């Protein structure tokens, strides 16, 4: 994986020193909160319901064992012994003190981590396919391209004050495991006639106005990728609305201009920027790519002893096909039935770090589904890995099932939320686990947001739940038919909302409809798309 060069290190160290001084001046009263707020946000420090919250970037979700151990140390030293892995492959600490923040950032810098650009109207942490570098179906490893974008977008002087935040995802396979088309810019690395290039999508996003990004160019030569991205951003930065934050995202600009006009303007800017020469030299991409060279895989057994049914179920559910046939990628579920999605204790982080070191070439991934991943595990090592995970409460065999719920922190932590998300996730996962219906239902992606900002990706859930404030009480809207994958679609609201008990019962009812109507091999989403909304509405409101 990528290691900082002297420039990266100098930049991060300088930023820590700068923030230390800013925090000191705030604590001494030399800066007001209005003056300090944009400065702390540039360093990932929010003020949430109960305390300050620090969001730490994990570029394209890739970290190594020593970094994970540092995340555990931060949790113990400056927080309350746990962290929360997010839908943008980051980690958040919920109880950070302002007076400790600079020290926490300094500790993070020792392992080449930071919290820069995890907030504010700038280009945020670049996300990527969590199976990058391991997936059997990828064209190339997308991470060198994501890293190049990270370097280009870090401290980019022109894009520090965009109209609104800006999120980029990079994948390199037909399968979309990063919600690529629900980003401000989605990039798919492709090959055409043996040449590597980038397919660009722009203007997607969730939030209060969900939109699927249209294709704006089907092939950008890889040695022009940054120039093209710069052109996309320049048009947005120039014409994106700044008068209304709810209409300031690029999706609104692309929608209001129309994709064709946005593309025309981007192409014009692209031609101009090509003449300016902003593209990094090819040697830089080659230098970065060396850090992502595949590990030294070795041959070995390609099957496992399936005599233990619990182990066999975990292998079936939580492992993913690897490009080397003696390996798999193993998903570490942070979704125990009744647990808090995405939360991990410091002890669990240290265990995962140890497993990465022993069994996965010192590599780990944070998944946007709020799980962790050991990308390269020898099939022969799976029993040992599973046993260690299971003993630590990390062995739930529930990837992509109704227990694998994405849930934002909601009103339990977030100052923007209108309703709690986590208790719903806990009750639904517990209910389905207890009744044994999880396996019967099969693949079903349920996503919960506690407000319209949609951090829990409810628009993209096969079943989505949105918490709203209804005259001071929590109310939940149910929606069906969303997908963030290559068959991307936006969920539609079923009808009037429910209270907490009601929405849990509603989830059971819609799964009943599915089970009664499904054809062989159909997922919930397939059945919904075939039979439509009406049977579900009839069951819910009939």
């Amino acid at each position: 994986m990528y290691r900082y060069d002297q420039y990266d290190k100098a930049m991060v160290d300088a930023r820590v020193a700068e923030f230390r001084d800013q925090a000191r001046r705030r604590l001494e009263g030399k800066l007001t909160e209005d003056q300090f707020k944009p400065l702390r946000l540039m360093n990932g420090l929010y003020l949430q319901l109960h305390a300050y919250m620090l969001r730490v970037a994990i570029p394209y979700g890739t970290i190594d064992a020593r970094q994970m151990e540092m995340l555990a140390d931060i949790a113990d030293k400056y927080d309350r012994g746990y962290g929360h892995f997010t839908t943008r492959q980051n980690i958040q600490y919920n109880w950070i003190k302002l007076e400790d923040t600079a020290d926490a950032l300094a500790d993070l810098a020792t392992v080449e981590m930071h919290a820069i650009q995890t907030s504010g109207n700038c280009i945020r942490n670049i996300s990527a396919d969590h199976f990058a570098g391991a997936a059997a179906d990828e064209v190339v490893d997308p991470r060198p391209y994501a890293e190049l974008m990270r370097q280009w977008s870090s401290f980019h002087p022109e894009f520090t004050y965009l109209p609104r935040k800006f999120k980029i995802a990079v994948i390199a396979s037909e399968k979309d495991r990063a919600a690529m088309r629900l980003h401000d810019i989605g990039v798919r690395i492709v090959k055409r006639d043996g040449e590597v290039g980038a397919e660009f999508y722009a203007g997607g996003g969730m939030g209060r106005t969900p939109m699927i990004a249209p294709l704006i160019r089907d092939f950008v030569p890889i040695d022009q990728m940054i120039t093209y991205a710069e052109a996309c951003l320049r048009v947005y930065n120039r014409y994106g609305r700044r008068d209304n934050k709810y209409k300031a995202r690029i999706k609104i600009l692309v929608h209001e201009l129309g994709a064709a006009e946005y593309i025309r303007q981007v192409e014009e800017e692209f031609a101009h920027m090509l003449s300016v020469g902003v593209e990094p030299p090819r040697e830089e991409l080659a230098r970065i790519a060396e850090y992502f060279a595949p590990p030294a895989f070795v041959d070995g057994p390609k099957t496992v002893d399936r005599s233990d049914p619990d182990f066999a179920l975990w292998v079936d559910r939580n492992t993913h096909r690897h490009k080397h046939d003696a390996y798999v990628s193993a998903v570490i579920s942070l979704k125990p039935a009744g647990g808090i999605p995405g939360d991990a204790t410091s002890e669990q982080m240290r265990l995962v770090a140890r497993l990465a070191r022993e069994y996965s070439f010192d590599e780990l991934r944070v998944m946007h589904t709020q799980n962790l991943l050991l990308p390269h595990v020898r099939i022969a090592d799976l029993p040992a890995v599973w046993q260690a995970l299971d003993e630590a409460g990390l062995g739930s065999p529930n990837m992509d099932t109704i227990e694998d719920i994405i849930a934002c922190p909601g009103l339990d932590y977030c100052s923007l939320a209108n309703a709690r998300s986590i208790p719903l996730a806990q009750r639904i996962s517990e209910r389905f686990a207890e009744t044994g219906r999880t396996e019967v239902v099969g693949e079903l992606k349920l996503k919960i947001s506690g407000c319209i900002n949609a951090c829990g990706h409810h628009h993209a859930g096969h079943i989505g739940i949105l918490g709203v404030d209804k005259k001071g009480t929590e109310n939940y809207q149910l929606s069906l038919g969303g997908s963030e994958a290559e068959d991307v679609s936006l969920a539609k609201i079923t009808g009037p909302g429910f209270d907490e008990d009601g929405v849990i019962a509603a989830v059971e009812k819609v799964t009943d409809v599915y089970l009664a109507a499904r054809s062989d091999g159909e997922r919930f989403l397939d059945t919904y798309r075939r039979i439509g909304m009406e049977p579900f509405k009839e069951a819910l409101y009939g």
Partner: protein
Amino acid sequence: MKILTGNDLRTGAVTWWNGTGWSLFVDDAVDVGEDAEEILAREEAARRVNVPYAIEATIDAAGHVRPAHIKDRVRALGPTVRRDLAVPTANKTGWDWVI
């Protein structure tokens, strides 16, 4: 009643105006009546509190203060899903009145 709340500048902890200072316990909150704006301006300027604001609340016969909005009730006790991290309170029924 009208009470004042905010976050401690150094730690971020939720605090409540008790008439002379800022307490971690919602039951210590006092009715500020018409004095809210004056106290808020003075306390924020003195950096004894961060982003303070006034809210409506009620007080029961046992003296337990209950903020009117659910968001402030969650702030008063802590995350409902991590009761082990809750603010210590004498209000034994606290979790019942959050929702």
